[in-house]
């Protein structure tokens, strides 16, 4: 029996131990499904303090898995998405854990943490509580492997393109102006990341948002239409022409947008970033609005969404919205090419604050914070 073929057995044994400790029959409770031709394999699995308990007619699973995956392919892995499927949990019960901005050489391992809590009714069926599947792997040549049920290919590719853009930006800065300029730029990036407003965001696709616990008991806030202000990027292939949403207190409802394709190429998918502004003047990135209909070259389209967003300060204090702005986050053309904002596009002050940093920029900032400038320079020279 090879090392890799033993792994499912080890995993099953771990689950059996987990079940015994908790006093819950978890036979086949967790299932890790990797396809036979998977470029990744499970090198190790530590379930740590995971436990499952029964409360009344419900099962509560508290899973803390430290997983190590090994790159069995001949290419460098740049990103991975694992799909977590939980049966009988509300509305599909899907989750994912993604690890972007990787650089894993063939034969090397890398860690993935899964910290999941789930409550679902007791089931007499034989299906596992949670299935873990490989949704996608992105390689350094931007090739992709996986079922792509979550559109992981698009997201992993956008992250990788952003990573290349930002690495190139810092590398050019280092080469052209030296370490001092690099340090200044990385400190500026660190400052932007630290200064981002801390908010919690909720969304319902349709229907009314359930009443918030801290909603005012007597003041009924009337809806009012608010027009979008657009943060224009010179290089964007899509122009936002008009847009509005209804705002009531801390909720923004039913965003509507008019968009125009400035490029000759047809568009398959685009994503618009939404920034919200509260009555204190604070602006923060909160949501994305995807458009998944084909948009012909030079064509226009209307985007109507029925979702409702609610935003509050982290910690629970309530805020009152008064405005919205939008910007084009990324575009996927019908021919498979992508557009992401360039560093020049987002260099403008307001956009630089609102557009979320790439995972790679966050990683480089953390490297500098933890190990210093020299480690960052060495990383950029790789």
């Amino acid at each position, binding site marked *: 029996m090879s090392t890799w073929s033993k792994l499912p057995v080890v995993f099953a044994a771990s689950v059996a131990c987990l079940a015994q400790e908790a006093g819950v029959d978890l036979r086949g409770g967790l299932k890790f499904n990797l396809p036979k031709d998977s470029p990744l394999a499970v090198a190790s699995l530590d379930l740590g303090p995971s436990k499952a308990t029964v409360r009344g007619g419900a099962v509560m699973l508290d899973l803390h898995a430290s997983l190590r995956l090994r790159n069995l392919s001949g290419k460098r892995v740049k990103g991975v998405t694992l799909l977590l499927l939980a049966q*009988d949990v*509300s509305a599909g019960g*899907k989750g*994912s854990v993604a690890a972007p901005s990787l650089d894993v050489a063939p034969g090397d391992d890398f860690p*993935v943490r899964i910290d999941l809590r789930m409550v679902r009714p007791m089931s007499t069926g034989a299906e596992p509580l949670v299935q873990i599947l490989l949704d996608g792997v992105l390689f350094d040549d931007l090739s992709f492997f996986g079922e792509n049920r979550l559109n992981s290919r698009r997201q992993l590719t956008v992250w990788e393109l952003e990573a290349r853009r930002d690495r190139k930006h810092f590398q050019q800065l280092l080469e052209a102006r030296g370490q001092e300029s690099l340090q200044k730029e990385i400190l500026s990036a660190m400052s932007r990341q630290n200064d981002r407003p801390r908010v919690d*965001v909720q*969304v319902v696709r349709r229907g009314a948002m*359930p009443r918030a616990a801290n909603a005012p008991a007597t003041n009924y806030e009337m809806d009012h239409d608010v027009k979008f202000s657009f943060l224009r990027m010179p290089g964007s292939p899509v122009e936002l022409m008009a847009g509005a949403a209804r705002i009531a207190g801390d909720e923004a409802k039913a965003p509507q947008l008019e968009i125009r394709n400035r490029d000759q190429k047809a568009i398959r998918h685009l994503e618009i970033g939404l920034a919200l502004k509260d009555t204190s003047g604070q602006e923060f990135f909160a949501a994305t609005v995807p458009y998944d209909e084909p948009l012909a070259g030079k064509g226009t389209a209307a985007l109507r969404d029925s979702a409702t967003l609610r935003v509050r300060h982290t910690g629970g204090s309530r805020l009152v919205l008064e405005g919205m702005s939008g910007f084009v986050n990324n575009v996927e053309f019908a021919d498979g090419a992508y557009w992401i904002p360039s560093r020049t596009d987002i260099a403008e002050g307001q956009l630089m604050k609102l557009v979320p940093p790439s995972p790679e920029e966050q990683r480089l900032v953390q490297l500098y914070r933890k190990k210093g400038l020299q480690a960052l320079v060495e990383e950029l020279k790789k």
Partner: protein
Amino acid sequence: MKHPSVEKLALYDGGELSWLDHLILRRHVTGCAQCQAEVEMFRGAAVAVREETEEIPAGVQWDRLAAEMRANIRVGIAASDAISAYGKPNDAGPVQGMPWRMAVLTFGLVLMVTVGYWLNAVKKSEQIAAMRPPDPVVAEASERGVGMSDGSKELVLQSPKTNVRAAIVTVSTVGSAGARYVDEDTGQITVNNVYVE
């Protein structure tokens, strides 16, 4: 000429009329030979009774006995009136009692109305519950993690133990919520998402 009734003449002779009736009757009897004869007859009868009372055992006071007998007769008449009026409609006031059949019938009616109302209320509440749309599934992204819940079931992807605070949280209007974490030691990025279908 109208003569007083025999009963009134008897009461006149016994001295049991009111002073006004006694005065009016004395004027009539004084001028009416027929009524005088009637009074005389009653007086003779009274003498005969008195002679009879002498045969009553010693110690028995006739007057007291007669008063008690009259009182008993009045009590008996009042009781008879009360029994005959029992259960009949009385315009003067409420019915003083209820027959047991009426009580059973009333109880049955009240029970039937109550059960009917309760069954109807239960059915209506079930209909309202069936008409009400299910609670919307809320997806939430916060620094502590991402999750979705419909009130009874939930799925939460928590922040890794080493990174309590998410660096970036966001939602998508197609019904997903995401949180991005940076590992303090390695700098590795983890992005957790939940998806509402």
